[in-house]
């Protein structure tokens, strides 16, 4: 059964301002935005509230009631930013936190509260820490978002047990149901001052008189209609969390936490027949800093010791300072572990795993892009005649060509050479490369390779294979036609 907590910040913006600027602490002040040529109050500090100033009033009226009132300008977007920051802070309590504009948060606490010793203690912990930061917060937990919302704002019972929504709601005013102003006005006009007075009316009657919103909200509060919320951070489907009671500051402690999380995650992987392809290990520091290390594997793996070894190199990059209070291991990419992969190179599956693990270790220690494998590409242009394989299982679609001679070594960038030749379109008699003269004894060619105009504009190359007096074999080319004073290049070495 899902359980939701609602956090309500009655003085969100003003609490924030008092927290950041101590001169406003305990002062009566309002935060206003200019709207249609007037200054409208958007947030009031608790002392100002006591004077009878409420959000929505015009600043000029407030000044009339209380001339010493301090007025600060604010920005309509500020509430949302502040709530988002608070929601991210709350991720330490549950992975699923949603914004509840304009003044609250919704937490999906299902399966989280026992870590704090029960729902009551969970809420107390949140409130105590937020109060310490200077935020006034009211909290409640219930089976449905609607009930939790109502209890946080209007109720006196922070934890509503399953199935007791109706009793909990019945004594509250209709505004606890998150209704529009005009619906509330009509209810008040008809003397329906508590929810219990219209709870038992049939849906059709309520819909006819107050519009579809009222029965909809009642159903949501009672749980007969599901309410969806949008988490601030999408929840990773494969995630393990490990809160620690005492802050962890040693590498050994982090390693133990990682081992523990990996074991839990791999157990789940095994039962679902999947393996990890890329993973993130995050550590939340006491002061709110989040640090992470990432790994990737070539083949889906659910081998604890292998994955641990990949992370192990990077544990040293953590800066614990005061210590970490929460560790989260996420598998951002998983793949099916299938036995078919054994057919990768016609080698045994066991070998594939070993090779993949070796490559993972290399990639984790060095850079992931240092490992390359090539497949043939259907291009004559030498630089384009190979393409990088994306995964280990990729097999060549076309076969490797053997009918045309290709050098064993190819220079990344062709090197310019000086040549001497007697006849056009004949190989050179000798060429100079890096100050060394090579006399050409034997030669083959030319093999003309045209630039592929649909990929790149450029001149064609006439390739010659030549052999010098010592037997060294080179691959040279002339760029462009003979009569345009072309340049010559050395492009490769034959074995």
């Amino acid at each position, binding site marked *: 059964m899902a359980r939701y907590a609602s956090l309500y910040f009655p003085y969100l913006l003003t609490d924030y301002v008092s927290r950041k600027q101590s001169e406003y602490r305990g002062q009566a002040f309002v935060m206003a935005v200019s709207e249609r040529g007037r200054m409208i109050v958007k947030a009031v500090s608790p002392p100002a509230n006591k004077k009878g100033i409420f959000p929505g009033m015009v600043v000029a009226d407030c000044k009339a009631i209380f001339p010493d009132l301090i007025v600060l300008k604010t920005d309509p977007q500020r509430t949302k930013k502040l709530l988002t920051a608070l929601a991210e802070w709350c991720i330490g309590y549950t992975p699923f936190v949603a914004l509840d504009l304009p003044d609250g948060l919704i937490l999906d606490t299902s399966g989280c509260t026992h870590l704090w010793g029960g729902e009551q203690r969970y809420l107390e912990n949140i409130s105590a820490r937020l109060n310490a930061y200077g935020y006034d917060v009211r909290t409640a937990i219930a089976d449905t978002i609607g009930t939790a919302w109502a209890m946080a704002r209007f109720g006196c019972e922070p934890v509503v047990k399953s199935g007791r929504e109706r009793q909990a709601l019945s004594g509250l005013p209709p505004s606890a149901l998150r209704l529009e102003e005009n619906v509330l006005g009509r209810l008040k006009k008809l003397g329906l001052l508590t929810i219990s007075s219209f709870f038992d009316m049939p849906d059709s009657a309520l819909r006819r008189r107050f519009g579809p919103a009222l029965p909809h909200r009642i159903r949501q509060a009672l749980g007969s209609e599901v309410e969806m919320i949008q988490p601030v951070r999408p929840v990773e489907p494969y995630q393990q969390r490990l809160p620690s009671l005492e802050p962890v500051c040693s590498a050994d402690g982090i390693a133990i936490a990682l081992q523990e999380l990996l074991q839990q995650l791999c157990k789940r992987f095994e039962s679902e027949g999947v393996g990890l392809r890329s993973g993130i290990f995050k550590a939340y520091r006491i002061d709110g800093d989040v640090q992470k290390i990432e790994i990737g594997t070539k083949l889906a793996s659910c081998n604890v010791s292998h994955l641990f070894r990949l992370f192990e190199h990077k544990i040293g990059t953590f800066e614990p300072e005061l210590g970490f209070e929460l560790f989260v291991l996420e598998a951002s990419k998983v793949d099916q572990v299938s036995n078919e992969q054994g057919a990768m190179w016609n080698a045994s599956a066991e070998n594939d795993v070993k090779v993949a693990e070796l490559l993972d270790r290399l990639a984790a220690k060095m850079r992931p892009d240092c490992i390359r494998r090539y497949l043939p590409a259907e291009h004559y242009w030498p630089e384009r005649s190979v393409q990088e394989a994306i995964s280990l299982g990729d097999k060549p679609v076309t076969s490797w060509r053997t009918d045309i001679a290709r050098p064993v070594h190819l*220079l990344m960038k062709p090197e310019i050479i000086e040549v001497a030749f007697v006849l056009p379109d004949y190989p050179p008699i000798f060429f100079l490369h890096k100050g060394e003269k090579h006399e050409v004894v034997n030669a083959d060619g030319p093999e003309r390779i045209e630039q592929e105009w649909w990929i790149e504009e450029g001149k064609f190359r006439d390739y010659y294979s030549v*052999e010098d007096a010592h037997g060294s074999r080179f691959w040279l080319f002339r760029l462009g036609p003979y009569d345009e004073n072309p340049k010559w290049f050395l492009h490769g070495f034959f*074995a």
Partner: protein
Amino acid sequence: MQTTTEKREIVKRLQAKVDALQGLGRPADVISRTGFAPFESAFPDRIFPVGTVHEFLSDESSHAACTNGFIAGLASTFLNKDGICLWIGRNRKVFPPGLKHFGITPSNVIFVDLHKQNDLLWAIEEALKCDALTSVVGEIRDLGFTESRRLQLAVEKSGVTGFIHCHKPKAKGSSACTTRWRVTPGMSFTPGGLPGIGHAVWDVELLKVRNGKPGSWRIGWIGNRFMTVDDRRLPDTLEELQVG
């Protein structure tokens, strides 16, 4: 009473075991042995050792290409077709389609490009420890005695064959590798003296071999195998060419 031939057989088997323990590698499979015919006389028991580390030296860019070609030829001679090869090096120049000519399927080669000498040695050692590979080619600058000893110890456990290609080494000290080779290009061989460039020919020097006797040969890569070019049987090669 055992006959002399039986006894000789037993001694031979025991010698192979002793060689393996001494880090001389295990003998290559009988089937592929014929591929090493030109220089097998140099090795103990006339068997090319696999599961050990071979060292190659080269000084010039063109020699480096020949050495890599020769390594590819050696590797393909005892690799079965689907074996996986790791090619670890710095400033890699190897052009995968060029390996196909020496019998290696380029898509079965995994290239690892690193920059620092220490990273290279670490990667080569890790790779040599992985018994799922058949061979590992490492291109580095220098291989000291300590490093070569480490690599040799790694292969003795895993049975992977390592080819360490030292390009432009600063010092040529002693090493714990089983063999040390130097390959330089020779004039290519065209059957019947046809014009143009023919089959690759190398001057192969075996500078050092444990328990064997060093030598030098002029060897060509003809029809997908090593052939001694000096005492070639010309008609056969010509026939092969016509078929191919």
